């Protein structure tokens, strides 16, 4: 089973890369773009058969390794 996770910078945490991407998009005439936040996407292949168990396990992974909860939020899709 594949579990997908998105990790993004928390609101209020400076995201210099997102800012640079936004400015570049603006300079490419995508003038509607007012903010970009850059995150990470994980696809985790697990041997667990039960989706609930698997997601619980992935949540543990997020807290312990995949995200730094001081600056990042995670979302299990």
């Amino acid at each position: 089973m594949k579990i997908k996770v998105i990790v993004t910078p928390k609101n209020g945490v400076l995201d210099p890369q997102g800012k640079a991407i936004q400015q570049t998009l603006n300079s490419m005439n995508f003038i509607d773009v007012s903010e970009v936040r850059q995150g990470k996407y994980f696809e985790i292949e697990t041997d667990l058969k039960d989706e609930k168990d698997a997601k619980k396990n992935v949540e543990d992974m997020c807290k312990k390794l995949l995200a730094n909860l001081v600056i990042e939020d995670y979302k299990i899709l």
Partner: protein
Amino acid sequence: MKSSVIIFPGSNCDRDMDVALKKFGFKNKMVWHNDNVIPKSDLVVLPGGFSYGDYLRCGSIAAKSNIINSVIEFANKGGLVIGICNGFQILIETGLVTGALLRNKYLKFICKNIFVKANKTQNKYFNKIKKDILELHIAHNDGNYFCSQDDLNSMQDNDQIAVRYCDSNGEISENSNPNGSIQNIAGVFNKKKNILGMMPHPERVIDNCLSSNDGSYFFENLLSNMK
């Protein structure tokens, strides 16, 4: 005094730290990250570099390596632990010190000498250093210190801000902030002040033939407190 420098795959300031520690009289041992036990030490150093290629987040993979449990145990018993640059990032990822280190504000790898003001109250790292402003070296991409307002308040209350970026006159301002760190923070202590994490490299400036000799004050002071 005995010290141990931990080597991770991708560490690149481990030898510099070894040279510095020995120059000032430490009996230093190099310890591989896959070992489980630190040799008997008075000081443990997590050196700078790019452990595990900075994958995931700087320091995050090293923070889960075999040796880290004994580093945490050593630190929790009050042992002196220093993390420089990537070592600071590793300390952050282990949770031994508070906060996070984000990408530098202007997205540039910064490699230059900077000036810092150190906190000299009740800690073994800077307490008796006579100079007020130290010229040290930084070389990092992710040194932009961040923590929540609550954490910042509590660290200020406990006097845990160890080092702040300033200019050559000691003025702490946005102009002397190389990477966007909140409050110009370049390094912090844990609550008990036995653990120091900082971005500047004292081990790179320990001789008059180098660009600065101010790192010497750091090592001399530390050693004098350990005798």
